[in-house]
Each structure stands twice: as structure tokens, then as C-alpha cells.
């Protein structure tokens, strides 16, 4: 392989970055060699994305040094980064669906001759790029909107490479791909490294690193723990480095009452998303479905709530089989769901707290089924504000003016107005500050104590461990292993990230 004394393509030394009072990364190091795949791993919030943004020029480090081919450089903007030869492919393809692949790649930097776009010249270059990536040349003239998500991602990679990139950052490229598509992606990555391009590869799926990465840098709590040749580690060891020494969590042991399951999923399947999912939740129990982004875990939640009905399998509520057709129907069955994407799926932006809480319960909160009972609405809203400790001057405050944690509490309050039998919480504390996170966790436990069956769908490992009575790991679209509340983070992570050696 490479020699230690060779000049690295890119080296970051002792880089630190703060956002306000939060230290996103401190004294982090990263060394990327030419023609190598360098994996960057860490849990959510470990500082991976800040690190990448600094390399890509989207953020500037407060302290620390960056070297490019051995000489110090300053990456002050994305333009600087691109000029150096650093290209980034984000998870969601940023393409124009109505334009062809070639046009997308050359948008804003068209090759022109005599005033018109030189399609043949562009096409030749695109075909070269596609060949380099091992993709069919016919893609060049295909309309991007006609391609699959995986193909669009490959186009994004081609676009990134069109500017003669020397370092390519792939931000969780596999999260949205199927296994076969991941294989194609790897072929593309291998071809690139063979031609001398360095790849910084970010992934939650640890198992795949062993097939593609040369070196891996592990991050935890904003620090780089170390860089290792991939061959020296196992999935378990990486997982261990990621989670560190476990603090003894003084989590009080909770007695879950015996009884029949309130929510049961048997062999639940939605073609192309997840298959054969088996989960059961009793009254008063908190079960976590823990899986990485792209494991299908969020789609399972959406199916139980009638957003994307399952194609086969059985959902039972209190022992009787049900098929939730729509969120309305699911609510009638006693299922409530806290959506994962608060801004898009949860919040009515410029409307008041009271509005946000009563939406979806208007039948209950109305007189004669027609008029909103504003007195009761206010009582309910104030009650919820108090119960969930929402910090706000009054219930008429627009939700868009609130912090993430407070807004999340308001959206959660909406799920509690009519006491649900089953409460599904998708990523309940994403983008929420530490204090509010504690409060939301305490509230979830309280709800379970009162007899609600709680299913927490999460990709946040400590969260799953902190609140769940049982943890079901979802990997590759299906439930795999089950863990108890005293499981070790390492084991869970290894199970979810695919380290069953």
C-alpha cells in the first residue's frame, strides 16, 4: 500500500470550530492520501458533518491548519474548495430533473462554440466521465428526471468530477441505495481511486467500510479518536471506538406490567422499503426500533400510521387486525405519531401554539361538530404547555418563532390531546437541545407509566438505550436482533451497522 513518508493529498491538523457556545469539533486531525478511500465515521453529532463542511469550504475553522499536497492553504469558500479540486456529493442529488445529464453536468460552465453550446464536445467529455465511472454512455442524453435515485446519485458524482476533482467527498451515499445499487457505487469508487482520486467516504454502515475503505478515522464528541488502516479493525472495534467508554447510566429499572400486546406487527412488508418486520408493544411498554438512516426504520413507522400502507403482513391493535389507510384512520384506531421531520411534517409554521396543538383534534374540540370551542382549545393548549413545560409567554405565540426543543414539544402535545393507545415517536429528539431532550425523554416514560404503548423509532443510539424497555434492531429493511435495556452500545451499534462476525 502507501508509504508513510509520502506527502498526503489533504491534511487537516488540530482543527477546531465552535457554533456559539457549542464546540462542534476540537483539535481534529484528518489525513487523506492520494488514490485512497478514507472513511469518516462517528455517531450523530460527533462532528463529521462540520468536518466535511470545513473541507468543502462551506464553513471555516476557527483554528487549525489545512495542507494541500504538502503546502498550507486556506479554504475560505466553496469556490476555493472547488478550485483546489475538492468536490462534494450530498445525500440528496441537487439536479435539474428536466435537463439532460450532460446539461446538468455543464450547467453554468457550458462549452460554447460560436455562440451555441457545443453539444458534441460536452457529450464527449460526459461520455468520458461516464466511462470512468463505468456507466453506460447513453446516460449522457437521458433526462435526469427519468433516472432512478441511484442513477441520479451517479450523475451527481460525475458532476462533481467534471471539474477535475482530486478529492471527492461522499456524504452517506449508501443510505438511499439498495444493495445492488451500492455494489455499483463501489465499482465507481474503485475506478476513481484507481485513477488517483481520493475519496472521503462518510457512512453509518460499518460493514460496508470493509469492502471499500482503505483507512478509517473515527470521531466522537467533536474529536478525532484516531485513524487506522481498515484491516486492523473489526466492526465491533470501530463501534467501540465510536461510542467510547460507556458511562454507567443510572437508569432506574422500570417494571413493565404483564399483559397482551397492544400493537403487533407480523411479517409487515412494503415492497422495496422493508420486509418481514415483527414487533410487539404492550401497554405501558417502551419499545425502540433502532436502525441507521436508510435501514427502512422510518418507513415502518409511516406504514403503521397509514401514510404508506404496507403491501403485506398484519398490523394488530389490541389483538384485532387493522389496516390503517390514512393518518385519519390510524388516529381513529388509537394510533398517534410524532413525525420525524418537524419542519416539513410537523409544524404549521406561522400559526399559533394553540392552532398547532388542536389541529387533528378539531372534532373533539368543537361544539356541534362545527364551531371550534375556543375556550376548551385554550384550556387544552395551556394544559399541554404546562404539562410539557413549553417555554412561551402565551398560547398565541407562532410556533415558527420557537426553538427546536419547544417546537418539538408543541408537535408532541398534538399527539397527546386524545390519549392514544399506541404512540409512535419518530426521531423524537432530533435537532433538540440537551435540556429539552431530557424533558421529552422523561415525558415519554411518564406516558408509558400511564399505560400507553410507546414505539420509538430512532437512529440515536443513546436515546434508544436510555428510554426503551426493549430494543429491536432494524437492518437492511427488516427486524434482526432484540436487546434488553442493559445492552451495550457497542453491541447495538455493531448489530445495526452489520458486524455479525
Amino acid at each position, binding site marked *: 500500500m502507501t508509504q508513510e513518508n509520502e506527502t498526503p493529498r489533504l491534511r487537516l491538523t488540530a482543527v477546531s470550530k465552535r457554533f456559539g457556545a*457549542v464546540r462542534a469539533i476540537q483539535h481534529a486531525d484528518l489525513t487523506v492520501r492520494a488514490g485512497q478511500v478514507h472513511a469518516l465515521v462517528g455517531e450523530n453529532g460527533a462532528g463529521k458533518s462540520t468536518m466535511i463542511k470545513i473541507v468543502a469550504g462551506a464553513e471555516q475553522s476557527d483554528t487549525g491548519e489545512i495542507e494541500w499536497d504538502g503546502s498550507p492553504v486556506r479554504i475560505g469558500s466553496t469556490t476555493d474548495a472547488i478550485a483546489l479540486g475538492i468536490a462534494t456529493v450530498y445525500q440528496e442529488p441537487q439536479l435539474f430533473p428536466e435537463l439532460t445529464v450532460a446539461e446538468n453536468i455543464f450547467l453554468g460552465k457550458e462549452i460554447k462554440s460560436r455562440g451555441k453550446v457545443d453539444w458534441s464536445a460536452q457529450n464527449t467529455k460526459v461520455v468520458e466521465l461516464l466511462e470512468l465511472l463505468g456507466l453506460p454512455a447513453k446516460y449522457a442524453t437521458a433526462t435526469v428526471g427519468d433516472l432512478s435515485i441511484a442513477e441520479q446519485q451517479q450523475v451527481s458524482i460525475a458532476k462533481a468530477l467534471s471539474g477535475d476533482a482530486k478529492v471527492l467527498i461522499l456524504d452517506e451515499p449508501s443510505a438511499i441505495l439498495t444493495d445492488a445499487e451500492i455494489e455499483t457505487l463501489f465499482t465507481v469508487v474503485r475506478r476513481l481511486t484507481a485513477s488517483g482520486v481520493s475519496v472521503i467516504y462518510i457512512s453509518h454502515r460499518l460493514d460496508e467500510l470493509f469492502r471499500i475503505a482503505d483507512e478509517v478515522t473515527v470521531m466522537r*464528541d467533536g474529536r478525532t479518536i484516531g485513524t487506522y488502516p481498515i484491516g486492523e479493525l473489526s466492526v465491533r472495534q470501530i463501534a467501540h471506538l465510536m461510542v467510547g467508554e460507556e458511562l454507567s447510566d443510572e437508569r432506574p429499572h422500570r417494571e413493565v406490567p404483564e399483559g397482551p400486546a397492544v400493537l403487533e406487527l407480523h411479517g409487515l412488508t412494503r415492497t422495496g422499503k422493508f420486509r418481514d418486520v415483527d414487533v410487539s408493544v404492550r401497554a405501558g411498554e417502551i419499545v425502540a426500533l433502532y436502525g441507521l438512516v436508510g435501514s427502512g426504520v422510518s418507513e415502518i413507522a409511516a406504514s403503521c400510521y397509514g*401514510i404508506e400502507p404496507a403491501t403485506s403482513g398484519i398490523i394488530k391493535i389490541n389483538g384485532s387486525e387493522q389496516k390503517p389507510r390514512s393518518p*385519519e384512520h390510524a388516529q381513529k384506531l388509537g394510533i398517534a405519531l410524532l413525525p420525524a421531520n418537524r419542519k416539513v411534517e410537523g409544524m404549521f409554521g406561522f*400559526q399559533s401554539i394553540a392552532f398547532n396543538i388542536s*389541529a387533528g383534534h*378539531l372534532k373533539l374540540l368543537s361544539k356541534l361538530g*362545527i364551531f371550534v370551542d375556543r375556550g376548551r382549545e385554550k384550556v387544552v393548549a395551556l394544559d399541554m404547555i404546562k404539562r410539557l413545560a413549553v417555554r412561551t409567554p402565551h398560547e398565541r405565540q407562532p410556533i415558527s418563532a420557537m426553538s427546536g426543543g419547544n417546537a418539538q414539544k408543541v408537535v408532541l402535545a398534538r399527539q397527546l390531546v386524545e390519549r392514544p393507545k399506541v404512540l409512535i415517536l419518530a426521531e423524537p429528539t432530533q435537532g433538540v*437541545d440537551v*435540556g429539552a431532550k431530557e424533558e421529552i425523554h422523561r415525558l415519554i416514560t411518564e406516558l408509558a407509566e400511564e399505560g400507553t404503548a410507546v414505539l420509538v423509532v430512532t437512529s440515536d443510539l443513546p436515546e434508544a438505550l436510555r428510554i426503551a424497555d426493549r430494543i429491536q434492531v432494524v437492518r437492511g429493511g427488516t427486524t434482526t436482533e432484540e436487546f434488553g435495556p442493559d445492552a451495550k452500545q457497542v453491541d447495538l451499534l455493531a448489530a445495526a451497522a452489520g458486524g455479525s462476525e
Partner: protein
Amino acid sequence: MTITEAPPVKAQRKKPDLARIFLTQRIPLLAVLIVIVVVTFFINDAGGYLTAPYDFDYMSASLISAVPLAMLGLAEMLVILSGRGGIDLSVGAIVSLAGMIFGFAYGEWGWPLWLAIIATAGFGALLGAVNGFLVSYIGFPALIATLATFYAYKSIAIVINNQQPISTEPIQQLFSLTRSVELPIIGQYIPDVPLGIFTFLLPTVVAVWLLLARTAYGRRLYGIGTNDVAARWAGLPVRDTRFKAYVYAGLISGLVAVVTVAQFASARPDAGVSGNGMALPAITIAVLGGVAITGGIGRVAGVVLATLLIVWLNAGILLAFVGNEGSQYQLLALGAVLVFAALLNGLTNRKYGGAQ
């Protein structure tokens, strides 16, 4: 570990910033503009620059033109509130076609007035339901669906009676609906008010206000207009709610058809589409009244005040210019006020993050 981020301490409430209030809150702004307009014309009147006196009697009489304008403004508000580019270009065509139906029912078939009015409103609602079905259930962009139905309704309205207006005896007598009446008890102290205000406009205003501000349906409508993805996740009937917005808009247009027939004393096949049509001014009123074209924001009071502003401005302009100059300057006023309001919205969005 890292330091916990303290929640940002809200700056001490500053003393009310007048510029901010007028920029972010449409209703005070409109109220001030109305005062400015009225005072300006009073001064002009006192100076003898007007062709006829601009006084309370005149202002009150001019309100008759506020009836169709405000009602259609409210209809547009309902569909614009529903979000997803909601708009209704067909309201004028519905007025024409429903007006012809009213002409047949009341003028030719001799139905009782109340039944004819209900039938006309119901027919308007049916025409609105076609729009709602296309937009909400099939997924047409509202602009396209209502452009298509505008053409279709307009054409049917003209063809249905061989291009002939219906102005039989009963229809001609309806003109009395537009007369001004003295109000009981307080009537001696205030000017006479056009009857249409009480028979059509006020009931519509109250009904729409109740619908939007007090009913569960109104909540749902604001909900889907604010964020229709979140509305779906909250279990709101998104399609049904949006569909009904178009139905209600059609229903109001049907009522306007009756008013229009009364005003012309004739059911004219091109009543709602002649010249510039009725949709353009109605959309203008709604936008001026603070309804956000992106949905979810808008109040009845805003639309009513915007109507008063335009009606009294127009009434003054008619007196300030001789002949048809006046009606031309009304176009200028409408256009200029709309561009001004739109630019103000744009500025507000950038500076204060949106109007209320």
C-alpha cells in the same frame, strides 16, 4: 463534554416600532390608507375641485359597488388560503353562467325569488365543485383548471340563451334591490345605505368570517394552506378541505350573480367576463387585503378594508375627473395600489420574515 447551549435570552421588548406594525400588519395599514384617501377627497371637496360633493351620503351610496367586489374578494381569499397556488380565474364566468340560470329560473320559469336564489347559489357551488375536483382530486394547477373552466363557463353562458340577455318583467323589478334604504332607529342620523349591503354583502362577510375564524373547517383550511404535508400527518382531510374551498368560492360567485342581475336589471350572458372580467379585481382585492398568494395567511377584515379603500378611492376619482377619465384613473389606482402592496409584502418578507 461540550457546554450546554443556553436558550437565547429574548431581547427586552422594545417599544412598539411603528414602521414594523404598518409593514407586518395589513389591517392598520389599510385603515390608515382609507383615512388618508377620505380626508384627501374631503379637502378636495372643500376646495371645490370635485365635480360633485364627496360626503357621507356619496360614500354610502358608492358602497353598492362594494357588494360584488368584496364578495368575490372573499371567494378568492378562500381558494388562495387553501395553498398550493390556489386561485380562481373562473369566478367572473361563474357569475355570468349562474346569472343566466337565475334569469331562467326567476325571469322565465317564474320560480319564487328565494328558490331562484338558492338554486343559483347551488349552481354556482356546482361550478365551483368542478374546479375543486380538478384541482384537489386530480391535481391540476389551480391556474390551469380555472383558466379552462373560465373558457368553458363563459362559452356556455353565452350560448345557453343564444347570446340574448334575459330582462323580463320580474328581472327588471329586481333593480329595487339596489336602492338605498334608511336604517331603522338610527337611520335619521346616518346616510341611507344600499340595500344590497344588508341582503347580500353583510351576510356573506359574517358567514365567511364565521367559517374562517370560528369553525373547524376554517382551521383545516388555514392548516392545509400553511403546510399541507404537516396537515396530512396531523390527520386532516387535505383534499376534501381544498375541494370545499372551491365549492364555497363558487357558491359566493352564484350569489354575486344574483346581485349583478339585479344591478343590471337584466341577466346578461357576459356580465362577469366583459371587459376585464371580475376575477382580476377580485384577486387584486384579496392580495391587497393581505392574503398571501402562497396560502395560509389572510383575514376577512383585510379583504373588507381593502374593498372599502378601493371603492372610496374609485368614488373620489370619479368626481375628480370629467367623463371617462375617471374610470381610467380607477384602473391606475387599482394597479398602482396592487403593485405597491406586493412590493411591500416582498420587503416585509425580507425584513421581518413575513406579514401577519
